[in-house]
């Protein structure tokens, strides 16, 4: 297991190789990247089994306090700052370390990341074929996956922050991959800056914890938080600050604005970064720091509320959006909101389970959308229809993903969502469960809408030239599809062999698999009803929908405009920020420089111009001056002498 650090290092290693020699390598270096990630994926299994066999008395392993999970961690010193010495002392020095932690959470994320990354990279081989910057694409990919793996393995906040920023960078680079497009350029900038705002919170939180604990180790921080060595207020503040970072990364309201725009990037990138892995990092962070959140109840409540608002709001927008990828993006936001909600409801296991399930399904959906794009160069669903005739495989796989996220039973999404509902129901105010169910309904509805409009119904003539995608793409999709289908069964308790995910991924105490019938049935009914209605509305084209739209026209406009949040941002940036900075710049030039600096200088020069007039050029006035000076000097001397 101590070799886990190799997983990211593989990918890090290939980055410079591809950048420097990519042009000369076969496949522009893409094989290198894929090899690296394959290595990572293999190593993941090694570590998984190593971990399953590990016991608290294996070296470097122990049962972590509070989380109660078996944890193994390995560390190397990075560098010391401050006075020479070894021990951390908040007033003398701080030792920074490369440290990895291996626990169920980390392993789960490893699995998700490596697998999806592998799929996506293979998929990209044919999707990105012939792109001018093919090599750069794979370099960025490798860099991203390396950073992502570091992020999940990090055992101290600083390393986590480092990786956190790097994934942000890669997302920036990949969103702006086609930087010639102004839209892509702006989207990338927006993504970076918006997430950066969250990161400020994260950094402040980390430094705040350091201030309290004296080291950046997560474990120390959690112990301090739980043992009360850290005051309740500080714990809450720190937790909320960390959550700020999580909100940025996981596109939680009000920082969700960047994610839809991020769809400007290549679709595989959207699948990997903006669906499966990076955006989940926020959820991962909250889960990772759960002891801290748990130590302050208020923080968790905030998490839940934000999560719910996000989930609901995003779902509604997804319902009316007309861009296939954006629909998926909003659904991602919505599901991330659900995960946050579940965490806020102590649904630790549920959240992570849903994270995985959603990861596979959403990756599948994006790749499907990608193959649609590949086939039609079109993203506006209004111009699509009946594609299943031309690309049946894609249609089936996409449908699987949609049904899974729509919460149709036995598919992965259903089970994970069910867990969340239970958690919400158990731990939170009744209002929450109602709204959550509404969200469930909506998510089913928009999934169904996307699915039916694109693949079923009348064939849109716009796409004669459309065709099924090449095997590399379909195969990878198929693999993901399998997971989307059956991953849900991981939740069950298979007596003898496997006790269910709840005994592996848990907080505080292992949880068996449980199922609340009325909730299950209710959610199923909602989902099925949603799909049914969608079928009628979009395939059979009965015009109940039009009437509905007419009735809620005003509301519709608000929703279609994404609640004007982007406009609000735009306004605040243009009107407030830029105006203010313009003012400061003017101040600096006109006041600080021209008045405060040039002023005195010119004053002195003018003084010279005036003073020089005393030399009149008339000899008698020189004599007069001497006489006056004489009087002054004589009197002065006299005074000084007596």
């Amino acid at each position, binding site marked *: 297991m101590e070799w886990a650090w190799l997983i990211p290092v593989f990918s890090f290693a290939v980055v410079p190789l591809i950048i420097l020699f990519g042009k000369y390598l076969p496949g522009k270096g893409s094989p290198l990247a894929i090899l690296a990630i394959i290595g990572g994926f293999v190593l993941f299994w090694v570590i998984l089994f190593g971990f399953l066999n590990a016991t608290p008395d294996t070296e470097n392993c122990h049962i972590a306090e509070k989380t109660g999970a078996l944890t193994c961690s390995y560390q190397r010193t990075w560098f010391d700052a401050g006075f020479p010495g070894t021990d951390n002392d908040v007033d003398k020095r701080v030792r920074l370390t490369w440290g990895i932690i291996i626990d169920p959470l980390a392993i789960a994320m490893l699995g998700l990341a490596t697998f999806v990354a592998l799929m996506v990279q293979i998929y990209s081989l044919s999707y990105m074929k012939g792109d001018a910057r093919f090599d750069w694409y794979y370099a960025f990919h490798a860099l991203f996956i390396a950073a992502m793996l570091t992020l999940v393995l990090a055992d101290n906040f600083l390393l986590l922050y480092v990786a956190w920023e790097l994934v942000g960078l890669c997302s920036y680079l990949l969103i702006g991959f086609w930087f010639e497009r102004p839209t892509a350029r702006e989207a990338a900038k927006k993504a970076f800056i918006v997430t950066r705002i969250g990161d400020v919170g994260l950094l402040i939180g980390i430094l705040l914890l350091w201030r309290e604990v004296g080291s950046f180790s997560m474990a120390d921080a959690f112990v301090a938080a739980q043992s009360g060595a850290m005051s309740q207020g500080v714990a809450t503040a720190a937790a909320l600050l960390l959550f700020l970072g999580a909100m940025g990364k996981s596109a939680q309201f009000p920082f969700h604005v960047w994610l839809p725009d991020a769809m400007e990037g290549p679709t595989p990138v959207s699948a990997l970064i903006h669906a499966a892995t990076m955006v989940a990092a926020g959820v991962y962070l909250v889960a990772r720091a759960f002891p801290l959140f748990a130590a302050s109840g208020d923080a968790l409540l905030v998490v839940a509320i934000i999560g719910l608002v996000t989930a609901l709001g995003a779902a509604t927008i997804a319902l009316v959006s007309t861009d296939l990828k954006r629909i998926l993006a909003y659904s991602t936001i919505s599901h991330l909101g659900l995960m946050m909600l579940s965490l806020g409801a102590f649904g630790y296991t549920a959240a992570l389970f849903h994270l995985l399930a959603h990861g596979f399904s959403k990756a599948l959906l994006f790749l499907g959308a990608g193959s649609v794009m590949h086939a039609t160069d079109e993203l506006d669903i209004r111009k699509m229809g009946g594609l299943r005739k031309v690309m049946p495989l894609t249609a089936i796989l996409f449908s699987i993903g949609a049904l899974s996220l729509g919460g149709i039973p036995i598919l992965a999404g259903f089970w994970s969502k069910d867990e969340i509902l239970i958690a919400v129901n158990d731990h939170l105010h009744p209002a929450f469960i109602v709204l959550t169910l509404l969200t469930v309904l909506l998510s089913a509805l928009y999934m169904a809408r996307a699915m039916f409009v694109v693949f079923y119904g009348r064939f849109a003539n716009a796409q004669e030239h459309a065709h099924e995608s090449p095997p590399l793409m379909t195969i990878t999709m198929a693999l993901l599809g399998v997971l989307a289908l059956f991953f849900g069964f991981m939740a069950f308790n298979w007596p003898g062999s496997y006790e269910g995910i709840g005994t592996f991924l848990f907080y505080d105490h292992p949880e068996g698999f449980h199922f609340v019938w009325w909730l299950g049935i209710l959610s199923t009914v909602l989902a099925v009803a949603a799909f049914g209605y969608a079928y009628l509305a979009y395939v059979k084209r009965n015009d109940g929908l039009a009437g509905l739209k007419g009735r809620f026209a005003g509301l519709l406009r608000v929703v279609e405009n994404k609640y004007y949040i982007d406009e609000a941002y735009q306004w605040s940036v243009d009107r407030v920020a830029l105006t203010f900075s313009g003012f400061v710049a003017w101040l600096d030039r006109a006041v600080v420089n021209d008045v405060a600096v040039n002023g005195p200088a010119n004053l002195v020069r003018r003084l010279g111009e005036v*003073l020089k007039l005393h030399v009149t050029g008339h000899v008698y006035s020189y004599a007069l001056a001497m006489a006056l000076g004489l009087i002054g000097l004589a009197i002065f001397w006299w005074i000084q002498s007596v």
Partner: protein
Amino acid sequence: MSGLTDNLYLLTPEFALAGLAFLVFAVDLLLPEERKHLLGWLAVLGLLGLVVLSLLLLPGKEATLYGGLLAIDGYALFFKVLFLGIGVFIILSSIDYVKLHLTHPGEFYGLLLFSILGMNLMAQSRELLTAYISLELLSFSLYVMVAYALGNPKSNEGSLKYIIIGAFSSAILLYGISMVYSSLGVTRFEGISAALSSITDLRPALWVGLALIIVGLGFKLAAAPFHMWAPDVYEGAPLPVTAYLAIASKAAAFALLLRLLAEAFVPVGDRWDQWQIIVAALAALTMLLGNLVALAQRNLKRLMAYSSIGHVGYILAGAAALSPDSLLGANGIIFYLVGYSVTSIMVFAALIAFFNATGQEEIADLAGLADRQPLLAMAVAIGLFSLGGLPIFVGFTMKFYLFTAVANAGFLWLAGLAIFTSLISLYYYLQVIRQMYIQPALAAPLPGEEDNPDNEHSSAEHTHTPSHHLPHDDYEPLPRPPAALLAVVVLGLIATVALGVYPAPLLELVEAASAAILPGG
């Protein structure tokens, strides 16, 4: 009366100098007009000989001649060599100028030699009348030399103003002497100090008399408010004479003042402590006025005049820092005088060469000099940087030394003011350097640039153009300056840097000199 004229041989250099002057006059009669420049070389050789003679004859000699009228000591020797040296370089840099622009070369060099004699005696005299007469010898020569550009009304006007104010101030000086004499009965420096410290009921006449003497010397130093003649005279005088005024006559006046203060006032102790502030006040006024007004100058000579007034202010600050038990102040002053002389000679030599080639003397005329004659530009630039007090040049070291002395004597405020005013001075020095290096050659100064040298539109015509894309080839280069001037400039450069980087050897000599007049230190 025996004893008075013992070891009169110690005055050999002075007599020889007078002899040299007469020799020049004599040879002048023999030489044809076109060979007269040889007189200059004759004078140079003679002066160099005198330097050697003095260095062979005088070191280590301590004596006072004529019952305390003249001193033979390290101090006198140091300044003697300094003045002779200055004379050498001034003559070297004026030979061509004289040939080009002046008549009566023989008399010119002769008068110059007489004035050097006067300066030597000023540094040696320990008695008021002797000092006065020597000073008049210097002044008279200068009156004539200032007027030497006979056809030039400016030169004429300068000398008229100079002689009127000069006579006026010498009348004041003499009145001071008479008051001192009438209240103490002595005019010898140590006599004065002895009387000051011994006699109990001193008369106000004495204080006022001393004040009048300071006024008289203040005129010679061009210390504010007795400085107004300086700009006019400097501007009117022929360039070499301007240089001579700015360097030699100032150095001589300070040599006299320093000896007077050190031998007559400083030993008096507590009274001197009270008088220091007076000198400090003069210094402050002088450095402020000189540097501020210099900001507004367009004419090179006038600029140098005001800047020299500023430097006088610094040196006076050093004079205020004299103290019976420390040589720091005296060292600072002497070191500063040497450094100032070296730097200024270099600058003036370069300006003379420029004037010989172009006949121009406005700051704006220097435009593009860096391309037209790089060596001259470099000399002027380095000289001005040095005067502005920047390393690695002597200007920095000497200012640091002097201001340290001032601060150490308890006048930190004065040192601060001095440092601040040298910041101001840097501004106008940089304006000259800007003309030479930045302004393209032959570019007539733009309208409005005069009153605001770094204003916006001064280079609006080449916005967005890196300077090295500017056409810098449209200049006509200046002829290479003749050997004599070249020698002065190069030697000046070497000395400016050498003294700035390693002044220790010089400072040992300076220590010896100041120890001679401040035995207590």
